[in-house]
C-alpha cells in the first residue's frame, strides 16, 4: 500500500516538474503575445551563456522555432528574435530580445532544472551503497531489514519495505553537543547499541523499538568533548587509532594532529611515521594473508573527491594491497564495522551524504 502511495508521489513529482521544452514554449507564448497582427517572429541569434550542453541548446532553439511557427503559412512582416539561454542562482533564464529596428522588447522565462541524478561510481574495492540522505550522518548499521543511522543530534531507525527503506522512528540524543566537524560511532550488539559522541555515550535498544539514554562525560567516552578527536586511554588526542599485529607483535597506528600517521610498538615507543594517508583509517579483518588490514582515506582536501585504499603493514611501512575505492566527495567518517568498515562521504555535486559498506574481497 505504502509502495503505491510512494509511486504515485514520485510520478506526481516527475510529471509536475516543468521540462526545458515547456519553459521554451512558455517563452514562445510571451513572444507571440508581443507581436502585432501581420508580424512573424524568426530566431536570428542564439547565445548560450549557461552551463547547458550544445545538444540541449540546439534542441531549445528548435523547440522555440517550432513554437513560433504560425499555424497557417502566410507572408508576414519579420521580427528578429535574439534568443539567449543564461543562468542565475535560481536556475536557467531564457531571454528573448524582440527587435524591430532600434526598438527592443525583452521577454524572460525562468527554468529551474531538476537535480541531476546521482551517478554511481565504479567500485574497485568492494563498496556497497547502504543509504544516502541530505542531512549529515555519522555512522550506519544495517542488520537484516532494519537500519540504524546515527546523526549529530538524533538516532534514526529505518525498516526495509518493498518500496525501500522507510523511516520508522527517531530519538533525540540528549546531551549531544554541536561540533563543527561532527563525529560519532555506533557499536551494536544484538538488539542493543551504543553510540559514542563527542563527550557523551548513548545506549539503547533498536529492536523491537528504538530507545536511547545518553550520559555525558565518564571514562567510556571515545570522542573528545566538543572536538573532532578520539580520546584513547593514555594516548594524546588523535583523529584515528588502530591496533594491528605485525609478525605477532602489536603495532599501534595513530593519525595525529600534525597530519602524519605515527607508528608505535607494543611498548608505545615511536617506531615510524609517514604522511601518505588521510586522517581517517580503520583496521579490518583481512582474510587475504595478514591478520588485519588497514583501510585508509587519501590525502585529498575536504572539498575534493576522496578514496579509500586497503593496506598491509610490511616492515612498518604501508603497502597497498588493492585498487582504491573512489568516492564522489570527501570522506566524513571511516569506522570499523563487522565484516569490514563503514565509510560516509559527502557527495560534492549534490551535497548529500552517502554511507557505504566496505569489505575486502580476496577472490577478486
Amino acid at each position, binding site marked *: 500500500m505504502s509502495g503505491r502511495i510512494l509511486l504515485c508521489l514520485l510520478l506526481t513529482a516527475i510529471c509536475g516538474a516543468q521540462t526545458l521544452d515547456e519553459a521554451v514554449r512558455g517563452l514562445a507564448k510571451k513572444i507571440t503575445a508581443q507581436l502585432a497582427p501581420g508580424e512573424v517572429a524568426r530566431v536570428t541569434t542564439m547565445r548560450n551563456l549557461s552551463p547547458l550542453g550544445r545538444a540541449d541548446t540546439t534542441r531549445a532553439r528548435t523547440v522555440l522555432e517550432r513554437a513560433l511557427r504560425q499555424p497557417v503559412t502566410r507572408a508576414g512582416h519579420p521580427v528578429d528574435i535574439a534568443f539567449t539561454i*543564461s543562468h542565475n542562482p535560481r536556475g536557467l533564464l531564457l531571454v528573448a530580445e524582440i527587435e524591430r529596428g532600434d526598438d527592443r522588447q525583452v521577454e524572460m522565462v525562468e527554468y529551474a532544472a531538476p537535480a541531476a541524478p546521482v551517478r554511481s561510481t565504479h567500485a574497485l574495492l568492494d563498496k556497497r551503497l547502504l543509504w544516502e540522505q541530505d542531512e549529515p550522518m555519522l555512522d550506519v548499521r544495517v542488520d537484516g531489514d532494519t537500519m540504524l543511522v546515527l546523526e549529530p543530534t538524533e538516532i534514526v531507525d529505518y525498516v526495509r519495505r518493498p518500496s525501500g527503506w522507510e523511516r520508522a522512528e527517531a530519538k533525540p540524543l540528549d546531551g549531544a553537543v554541536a561540533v563543527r566537524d561532527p563525529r560519532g560511532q555506533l557499536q551494536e550488539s544484538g538488539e542493543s547499541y551504543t553510540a559514542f559522541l563527542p563527550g557523551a555515550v548513548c545506549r539503547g535498544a533498536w529492536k523491537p523499538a528504538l530507545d536511547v539514554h545518553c550520559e555525558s562525560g565518564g571514562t567510556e567516552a571515545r570522542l573528545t568533548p566538543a572536538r573532532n578527536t578520539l580520546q584513547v586511554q593514555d594516548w594524546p588526542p588523535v583523529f584515528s587509532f588502530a591496533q594491528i599485529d605485525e609478525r605477532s607483535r602489536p603495532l599501534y597506528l595513530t593519525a595525529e594532529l600534525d597530519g602524519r600517521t605515527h607508528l608505535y610498538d607494543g611498548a608505545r615507543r615511536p617506531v615510524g611515521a609517514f604522511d601518505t594517508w588521510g586522517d581517517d583509517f580503520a583496521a579490518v579483518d583481512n582474510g587475504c594473508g595478514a591478520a588485519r588490514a588497514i583501510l585508509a582515506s587519501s590525502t585529498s582536501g575536504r572539498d575534493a573527491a576522496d578514496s579509500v585504499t586497503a593496506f598491509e603493514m610490511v616492515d612498518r611501512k604501508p603497502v597497498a594491497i588493492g585498487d582504491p575505492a573512489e568516492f564522489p566527495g570527501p570522506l566524513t567518517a571511516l569506522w570499523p564495522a563487522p565484516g569490514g568498515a563503514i565509510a560516509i562521504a559527502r557527495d560534492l555535486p549534490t551535497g548529500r551524504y552517502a554511507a557505504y559498506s566496505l569489505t575486502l574481497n580476496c577472490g577478486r
Partner: protein
Amino acid sequence: MRPTVSRSIAAVSCLLAATALEAARRPHYGGTLRIEVSGAIGSLDPADMPTDPAEAALKENIVREVFNNAGATGPFRVANWEPMKALALEANEQFQGGRPYLDRVEIHMGRSPRDQALDFELGRADVIELPPSDLRRAQQQGGHTSESAPCRVIALVFNGRREDLDRLRQALALTIDRPAIRNVLLQRQGEISGALLPAWLSGYEFLFPAGRDVARAKELATLAAPLSFAWDSQDALLRSIAERIVVNAAEAGLTLRPTAGSQADARLVVLRIASDDAGDALKALGGAAASDPLKLYEAERALIESRRMVPLFQLPIAYEMGSNVHAWTTGPTGNWRLEDVWLESARP
C-alpha cells in the same frame, strides 16, 4: 587529468615534500587568526550601518560573526574593541553550530594596502585584502588567494540640473575604453558591464550595453561645456581609472574637470552588491522590489535611468592568506565564514 596520473603525482609530491603536509584533512582546533583590512568601523551596533561600501561589508561580516544576524549569539564573542582600529574576537564555546576551530580572531582595521602587504610578508598577518591589480601577481607567485564573485560595481553617477546632462552621460558612456582599463589597470580582473547586478546574480546582465562608439560620442558631446568630475582621492584604483576616463572623454571632445566634493556633475563611485538575492541586492542599491526576472530587469533599467548612472565594471573582493590558513571562504558577496577557518599549526 586522469585519476591514475593525478594519484601518481600526489604520491610523488608526498614523497618529495615530507614537510609540506597535505595530509591534515581534519580541522585542527586552536590558534589566533590575524586579519588586516583597509576599512574601519567605529561602532559594533548592527543597526548603525556605514554608507561606505567597504566599511559596510566589513561591518556585516563582523556583525554576522558576533551577532549571527538575528540578534542571537554568533560563533565569536568580542574580546577587545578599539573603534576604527582593532577588534579581537574569541570563540564562543556555546555556539549552537559548534564551537569555532579558532580560539581567537584579531582584525586590524584601517591598514593601507602597502602596510597589509608588508605585514603579510613579515608574518604579522595571516589574511590580507588584495587589490584587483595584485591578484594575478599573487596567484602567479603561488600565493593562497580567495575571491568573491563580482560584488562591487564601479560606476559613474551624474548630478545636477544641466539640461544637457543626459546627453553627456550617454556620450561619456560611449567614449570610455572599458577593455583597456580592464586589461591594464584592473589586470584583467572583474568584468566589463553596463549593468548594476552582475551576470552571476541576474542572468540578464548582457542586456545592458557596454560598448564603445567614439564617433557617436563626439556627436552627442558637440559644443558641450566642461563637466566637473570627482572621485575618492584616497582610493588609488579609482584615481587611476578616473584619470583614464578623463583622457577617453577628451577623445570625444568632452572636457572633464577634476574637482573635490559631492556636488560634481559626474562622480566615479564604488557600489556594493549586498545580497546574493538579486531582488534584495537591487533594493539595497535603491531599486524597486521585484522577484520576477523581467520586472527585476525593468526595475534595474529604471534605477540606472533615474539615478543617472553609468555602470562600468564589476569587481570581486579578494584576499591572500598564509599557507597555514585552511577553509577560508569568501562568499559571493564577500562574506566570511570565520567559524569554519582553522590553522594548521595553531599558535598559542
